[in-house]
């Protein structure tokens, strides 16, 4: 009976450890936190690699992106707000890329939560998304980021290789200019 108890407790412990990422670590990253360790696949498209400042390879972390600030949008092809927000987010990208003082310093990436490669491609093509999107078909990255509703924006400042969150908020924004101004101000860029 003692042996049975030990086995059951072992299984339970394993479940607690594996289940803890679902149950306890599901808070979105807070301002001041170090951005969670997420492994992204290096994009196959050379344009995206150039934009992110990455060379060919398999994986990268957010701090590997050649930028001072990275804005992460968690989105989904199936999310009406993300669909409506897409043109404004693209506008933020354009404002950055057209401004020599910001270009290269602020980069955007998107995590397509629960979307397959095909679904991510549909979203990208429908809305002409110019920045890299990363599919997250099994919600793995989404879980790490607290299972947030979408769209969700996380601003990350990278200093000396440490990615620190300076903005973490659900929902979109009214004006691309205002959002960008806020990113600059809050990041201390």
């Amino acid at each position, binding site marked *: *009976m003692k042996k049975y*108890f030990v086995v*059951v*407790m072992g299984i*339970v412990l394993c*479940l*607690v450890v594996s*289940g*803890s*990422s*679902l*149950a*306890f670590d*599901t808070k979105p990253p807070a301002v001041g936190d170090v951005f969670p360790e997420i492994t992204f696949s290096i994009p196959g498209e050379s344009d995206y690699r150039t934009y992110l400042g990455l060379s060919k390879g398999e994986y990268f972390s957010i701090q590997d992106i050649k930028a001072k600030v990275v804005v992460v949008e968690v989105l*989904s*092809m*199936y*999310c*009406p*707000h*993300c*669909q*409506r927000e897409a043109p404004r987010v693209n506008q933020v990208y354009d404002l950055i890329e057209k401004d020599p003082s910001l270009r290269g310093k602020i980069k955007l990436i998107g995590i397509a*939560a*629960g979307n*397959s490669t*095909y*679904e991510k491609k*549909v*979203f990208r093509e*429908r809305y002409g998304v110019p920045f890299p999107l990363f599919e997250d*078909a099994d*919600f793995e990255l*989404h*879980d790490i980021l607290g*299972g947030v*509703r*979408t*769209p*969700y924006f996380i601003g990350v400042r990278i200093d000396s290789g440490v990615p620190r969150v300076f903005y973490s908020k*659900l*929902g979109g924004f009214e004006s691309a200019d205002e959002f960008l101004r806020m990113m600059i101000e809050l990041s201390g860029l």
Partner: protein
Amino acid sequence: MKKQRNLTMAITGFVMLLVLHGTAYGLSDVFKENIYVPEKLAPTDSVLKVAVGEKAPDFTLPSVHHGKISLSQFIGKKNVVISFVPAAWTPVCSDQWPGYNIVKDLFDENDAILLGITADNIPTLFAWTNQMGELWFPVLSDFWPHGGTASKYGVLRSDGTTERAIFVIDKKGYIRYIDVHNINKRPPLESIMSELKKLNQ
């Protein structure tokens, strides 16, 4: 020993609660706090009454904005994709049709119409689908007799909701594809599109 057993059972129950509670859905903020999150459901809970190659059972149902719709009205005109979703104001379902709403052209390319069906009543479907924006496809209510059409197809669950199921029906009215999907997951868009493409080959 009894204490030990009770402790084991209590911890196991607690862990099961945690694991079930932690399920992620990736829900859109458009629905705010209005989505009812049920416990994790059995992946399927019905027995199909139709098969690929068979004539699709006809039905006539009221829709939210398009009056009464019959399957037979599309015979000879359009391929039909029926998307049964379990219930309004629930996770996954709320993040399924809005995706189809941005790919009308892909359905058009395959000469197909999409019919969304749940066993909810019209007012509920009206309020729910309003959150999704203007949908290009009809949303049908299989509320009364409750789940009658879902039952004909064998996708009515024992709790009165429907399965999360996709049926692809060709222009002659024959069923060409069935996916009674795990209710807790969304069928990938590409599987629907690849089945539609096959109809035109």
